């Protein structure tokens, strides 16, 4: 039993901290802190900065331009970037397509596509969900019909995050209509410039634009864009879903948001004294902090196991559920802490002198609503419970 990081790991952490201190642009950091949406250039800028140290391809081996980190190093980077209010990396290229190609792609695909992810030439987005296929992803209906050396794709994808900035999309499509749900699905790469594709914004509950619908009408894609074998796309989708995702519990974000909440509650006056001195509010903070300390160790336990074997679906589902519940509770407490001052919308459009709401908390209600997504996307918490139940009650 030893809960300490090694000297090497702690040195690495210091290196990451120093890098962030020296390289994270202040304007981007401020946007992240204030829950202001980032624009395309902000993301590109940040990806380029991370790539300047070969740190962008977090899970990639060195020979493909990645840093060759182990689980602990990725964990440390995830935690420190969150604590520093660095942007989340846009996962679709770096953390999803990259690993998929490394495992399932041809050598030619690797050579063609991987560099564009790291150097920022290509921005990938994801075409998985459909209006009728959310939690039940395998019921997807978008069809790709073989026509000579092409597939012709028709259908609709939705919840395509940051699709408005992307030039490429990887999709799950049905290539065998007769096969049973999961068996006729393929994984295919599509250039968004291809004729027949239309992307439409979806406005979210808090007013932001981060997801999109993508419509495919007779979209012609070369067969060589298939990743893996035809009708075996579900294997790839499952690989991504159960693939060890270091940051799934989001403990870095939670640690950061807990500290910010405490600072906010210390300067917020309620009932004539700082809110943090209200025992009923302090209780909520303390319980959340305890839950967070526990998930932090649970996360490390899982990391430690997956350094030797593979983390099971059970474990990543557990981290996902509990991690999102904690972050969402922190979001909720931050929203509550603002009291009546949580009302203005959209917070960033108010004149700077308008309200005595701390700048970094002005969008707290919007962030709270937006982060309800955490327990929905990437497999809702209900789906995660089903996964765990299947494991618990098996046999």
């Amino acid at each position, binding site marked *: 039993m030893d809960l300490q990081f090694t000297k090497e790991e702690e040195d690495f952490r210091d290196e990451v901290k120093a890098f962030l201190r020296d390289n994270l642009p202040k304007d981007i950091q401020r946007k992240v802190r204030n829950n202001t949406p980032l624009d395309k250039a902000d993301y590109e800028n940040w990806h380029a900065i991370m790539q300047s140290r070969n740190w962008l391809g977090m899970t990639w081996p060195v020979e493909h331009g990645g840093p060759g980190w182990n689980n602990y190093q990725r964990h440390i980077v995830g935690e420190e970037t969150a604590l520093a209010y660095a942007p989340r990396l846009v996962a679709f290229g770096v953390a999803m397509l990259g690993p998929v190609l490394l495992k399932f792609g041809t050598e030619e695909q690797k050579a063609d596509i991987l560099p564009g992810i790291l150097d920022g030439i290509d921005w990938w987005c994801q075409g998985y*969900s459909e209006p*009728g296929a*959310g*939690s*039940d992803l395998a*019921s997807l209906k978008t069809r790709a019909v073989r026509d000579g050396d092409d597939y012709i794709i028709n259908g609709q994808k*939705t*919840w395509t995050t940051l699709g408005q900035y992307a030039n490429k999309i990887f999709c799950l499509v049905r290539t065998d209509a007769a096969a049973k749900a999961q068996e006729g699905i393929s994984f295919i790469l599509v250039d968004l410039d291809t004729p027949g594709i239309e992307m439409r914004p*979806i*406005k*979210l*509950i*808090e*007013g932001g634009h981060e*997801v999109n619908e993508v419509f495919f009408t007779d979209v012609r894609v070369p067969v060589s864009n298939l990743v893996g074998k035809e009708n075996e796309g579900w294997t790839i989708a499952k690989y991504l879903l159960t693939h060890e995702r270091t940051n799934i519990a989001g403990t870095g974000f939670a640690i950061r948001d807990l500290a910010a909440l405490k600072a906010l509650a210390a300067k917020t*006056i*309620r*009932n*004539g004294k700082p809110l943090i001195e*209200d025992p*009923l*509010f302090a209780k909520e903070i303390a319980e959340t902090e305890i839950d967070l300390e526990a998930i932090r160790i649970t996360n490390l336990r899982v990391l430690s196991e997956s350094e030797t074997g593979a983390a099971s679906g059970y474990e990543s589902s557990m981290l996902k559920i509990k991690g999102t519940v904690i972050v*969402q509770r922190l979001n*909720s407490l931050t*929203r*509550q802490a*603002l*009291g*009546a*001052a*949580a*009302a*203005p*919308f*959209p917070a960033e*459009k*108010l*004149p700077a002198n*308008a*309200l*005595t*709401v701390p700048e970094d908390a002005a969008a707290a*209600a*919007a962030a*709270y*609503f937006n982060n*309800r*997504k955490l*327990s*929905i*996307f990437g497999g*809702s*918490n*209900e789906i995660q*419970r089903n996964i765990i139940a299947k494991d618990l009650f098996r046999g």
Partner: protein
Amino acid sequence: MDFNLSEDRRMLSDTLRRYLTEQYDIETRNKAAYEAPFYVPEKYIEMADLGVIGAFVTEDQGGFGGQGFDITTVFEELGRAICPEPMLASLMSVRLLADLGQDAMVEDIIGGSKRPALAVFEPEAGERLADITASFANGKLTGRKSVVYGAPNADVILVAARADGKIGLYLTETAETIDYAMIDGGGAAEVILDNTAAVCLAEDSEAALEAAFDAGRLALCAEAVGAMDVLLAMTVDFMKQRQQFGRPIAVFQALQHRVVDMAIEIEQCRSITVLAASHLASDQRAKYVAMAKNLIGRTSVKLSEEVIQLHGGIGMTWEYPGAHYAKRLTMIDHQLGDALIQLHKVMHAA
């Protein structure tokens, strides 16, 4: 014992529901809620014509209601349509003015030709009268008021301010405002008082303000109950239609039980609101209103979270009406003191 609305209230309720159904569909509502002045002045006047504002004060005061159940009748209907018209401001203001015998102004407000707002709380302070620092001297107000509901486009603003150590009520028609939409729709403003001309309505208004706020809290409770009813029904309908894994998600027992628990809590909210309404004129007013607002706050936030979750991504979209109900229900807890503040009152009343 009788839990039915009186004939008059039933008529008002029916009329208002019909009006809102016809005139305030969700697209109309969303447009009004987020574009300045964050309501529809013509519709406000039409609703005044229907008797909405008259219901807030007694016959003696020129209205035809004024009881707790008159308030809940109106606001439950407003909640069913998540109507952004600034009736909360009108309710609190007109009751204050009526109690002060401002008959002419009350008449204008009831008729809709004059619209008031009430500016009490301030930035950098909690929501307690004790924390008020705005002041009145020589016919002028100085200070800053924050999150003043209905202030955009208001004709008159009632301002709570200090003079000679007392908190009095002052009226101004010339205050500068910084207007904004609220995240759940409807307008509010920062009110800037910089030697702003005002007249004194009352020199000591603490008790009257507490009473007006309790009327406002009761209104918010009823609004929430109306919104919850509609949101629950929308959720049930959605679950019956939404297919996943080859079946409507309504058949999944884990989801069913969560909906059932919400349905039970909504009935609890309805009951505690009825109880608070029955006590609006009693000496137990503050305690029962605090109890109601606490339970409403606990339930409405939880309900909103559950409903969004049960809808999946669709509940997260601006296009889906339920999302706006969920936002409104969450933000109701932020108005006039949240569940935690109310709980403290209950604890101290016990």
